[in-house]
């Protein structure tokens, strides 16, 4: 039994003496996960906002409409509108302090209402790529909206814009009522187009009791379990190749000539893998707490579960190594298992992003089972019975492959 610890210590020393494989096993999932998260538009950072400087030289009805529409409702989600003087605006654009500057020239509203040619000037910040494009798109939409507003309510707006008769300060009641009636009639005529029937949808979210205490899902949290398990899988594959190194270096033969059993020797490798995996998963989980607000209390069980899951996958890989005819063959064989498993087992892509039929398949893979349970552990909804069942489902086949490997080590593999 003590040799198991000696063997594990040797393997850990060996791995840390040349940590290249170790670093790769950790970095690859981080890179893949980061890319996937970015492609999927993930991350918990705030949505970037475009600062738009508006130089309103018109100060008319439509220029105010343009500014107001840009700063409200959906536009307000990504646009910060700020009214400035032309000189100040240009200076701030030169300093790169805004995404775009909109110059509404004097007489813009009048020209629009009289249907005369006019233009507005949009200056874009060349050091930014996406935000100025968003501003331009939004502006085009507003200009079109202004055009249609004019088409529908052109006359009353024009009358309001022209103001009351010269000798009067206010519209008289009759004129005002006539304008109001005109607007009302126009809107009624277009009621079905402008205001379609409104459906009021009453919704009720029914959750299980356990889900109520769950941490809200974010993109990061969606990808984190996959990234962690991917690291375990890469590490398993990498560590399984040490069997060939032991064989090629002659140390496996030497171990076979000692009184120790191959079971103990292999168990040492498994223990080293477990310790390494729990260590790495702890680091990943702490990162999860820091970046994604993962609950601290989820760390101990998640760490053990990740270590256990990684070890079961390690057991499959070591058997594959002993079945191959060479180190290269073993590497190809284990990689051939690694990538499809990651693809269909919900490791590469989150299970939630996979079609239902693939989720069904994923559930039958060891990493799929591992990830399903890991998510419940991470969001605090885990149940002892289902965790134990999953542990047996992936643990028993792994134990069988482990025993087969230890038998092959002294036999067929040693004498290849």
């Amino acid at each position, binding site marked *: 039994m*003590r*040799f198991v610890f*000696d*063997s594990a210590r*040797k393997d850990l*020393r*060996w791995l840390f*003496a*040349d940590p290249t494989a170790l670093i790769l096993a950790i970095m690859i999932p981080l890179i893949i996960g980061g890319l996937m998260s970015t492609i999927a538009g993930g991350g918990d950072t705030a949505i970037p906002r475009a600062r738009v400087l508006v130089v309103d030289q018109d100060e008319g009805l439509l220029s105010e409409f343009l500014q107001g529409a840009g700063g409200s409702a959906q536009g307000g989600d990504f646009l910060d509108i700020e009214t400035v003087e032309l000189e100040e605006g240009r200076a701030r654009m030169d300093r790169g302090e805004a995404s775009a500057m909109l110059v509404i020239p004097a007489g813009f509203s009048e020209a629009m209402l009289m249907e005369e040619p006019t233009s507005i000037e949009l200056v874009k910040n060349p050091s930014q790529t996406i935000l100025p494009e968003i501003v331009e798109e939004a502006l085009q939409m507003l200009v079109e909206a202004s055009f249609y507003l004019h088409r529908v309510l052109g006359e009353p707006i024009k009358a309001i814009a022209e103001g009351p008769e010269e000798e009067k300060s206010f519209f008289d009641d009759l004129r005002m009522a006539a304008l109001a009636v005109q607007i009302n009639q126009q809107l009624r005529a277009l009621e079905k187009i402008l205001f379609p029937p409104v459906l009021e949808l009453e919704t009720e979210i029914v959750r299980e009791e356990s889900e109520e205490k769950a941490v809200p899902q974010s993109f990061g949290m969606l990808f984190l379990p996959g990234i962690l398990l991917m690291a375990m899988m890469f590490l398993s594959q990498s560590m399984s190749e040490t069997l060939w190194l032991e064989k090629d*270096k*002659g*140390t496996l*033969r*030497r*171990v*076979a*000539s*000692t*009184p*120790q059993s191959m079971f103990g020797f292999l168990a040492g490798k498994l223990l080293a893998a477990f310790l390494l995996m729990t260590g790495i998963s702890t680091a990943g989980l702490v990162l999860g707490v820091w970046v994604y607000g993962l609950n601290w209390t989820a760390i101990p069980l998640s760490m053990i579960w990740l270590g256990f899951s990684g070890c079961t996958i390690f057991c499959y890989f070591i058997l594959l190594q002993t079945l191959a005819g060479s180190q290269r063959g073993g590497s190809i064989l284990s990689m051939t298992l690694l990538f499809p498993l990651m693809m269909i087992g919900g490791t590469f892509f989150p299970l939630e992003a996979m079609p239902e039929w693939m989720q069904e398949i994923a559930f039958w893979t060891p990493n799929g089972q591992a990830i399903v349970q890991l998510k419940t552990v991470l969001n605090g909804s885990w149940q002892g019975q289902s965790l134990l069942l999953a542990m047996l489902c992936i643990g028993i086949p792994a134990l069988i492959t482990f025993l087969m490997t230890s038998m092959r080590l002294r036999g067929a593999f*040693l*004498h290849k």
Partner: protein
Amino acid sequence: MIEVSNLRKEYGDLVAVDGASFSARPGEIFGLLGPNGAGKSTSIGCISGLLKPSSGQVRVLGHDVVRDARAARASLGVVPQELALYEDLNARQNLQFWGAAYELRGSELKNRVQEVLEICGLLDRADEAVKKFSGGMKRRLNFGCGIVHRPKVILLDEPTVGVDPQSRVRLLDLVKEEAKRGVTVLYTTHYMEEAQELCDQLAIIDHGKMVASGTMDELRGMMGERDLLRMSGSFDPHSTEAAIAKLPGLELVSVDAESLMLATAEGSKRLPELFACLSKVGAEVRETTLSQPNLENLFIKLTGRELRE
């Protein structure tokens, strides 16, 4: 003590070891001498328990290597032909691991590792990665890993292959010191000089068969005080054999169309008579070599071919 009786190891139709029997006593260095592929490593493999014999019996300190494998392996120290080291670890860590594999623990392991580092002359490089060592240093550490647990029986499989002369001398000294401590040493080699210098008992093995065994004196006795004459040229094997048979005191070792080998006492004095005889049967001699009695000559005499073929 190692006792091997009628050891046979087959791989399909190939018989790697064919009925080998010998025994080595404590404090004795027993040499297995033979060319590459003769069956030396297979014999070591069977004795160390790495290979299961097809038939026959091997006992180490009275423990059968098949039925009582664990006890037999516990008393063995194996120094394999190829280096079997963790090159990314340092020398101390290697010795610690192999010592632990033989149940050494705590201060006993620590002290013994220190001792072996000193024996092997690696104390000043003990904490350096093995991959930075020279070939000779690696060989010495390879030996150290085989003796770290103070085994009563050591199996050395061609431990000096590819080693520089200085390291070879050092290694041979280490082996002699172990034997002096009462350890039974089984040493395989295809270097004649090594076997002559080191071994108390020797077995010559070829094509899996033991062709001779005994002490160095006994083996020399088998050769007699006779020189070995090797001739190259063109010969008619039948007429040459008949002509040689008529010359008293000349033993024909082998003859073919291009070479002739003979064993005879005072070979240099017999040359004129031999040349005359060969000339009569139409043989043409282009080159003649005469060598004094040694193991190589014995090997040639017994197998009809050179040891390094």
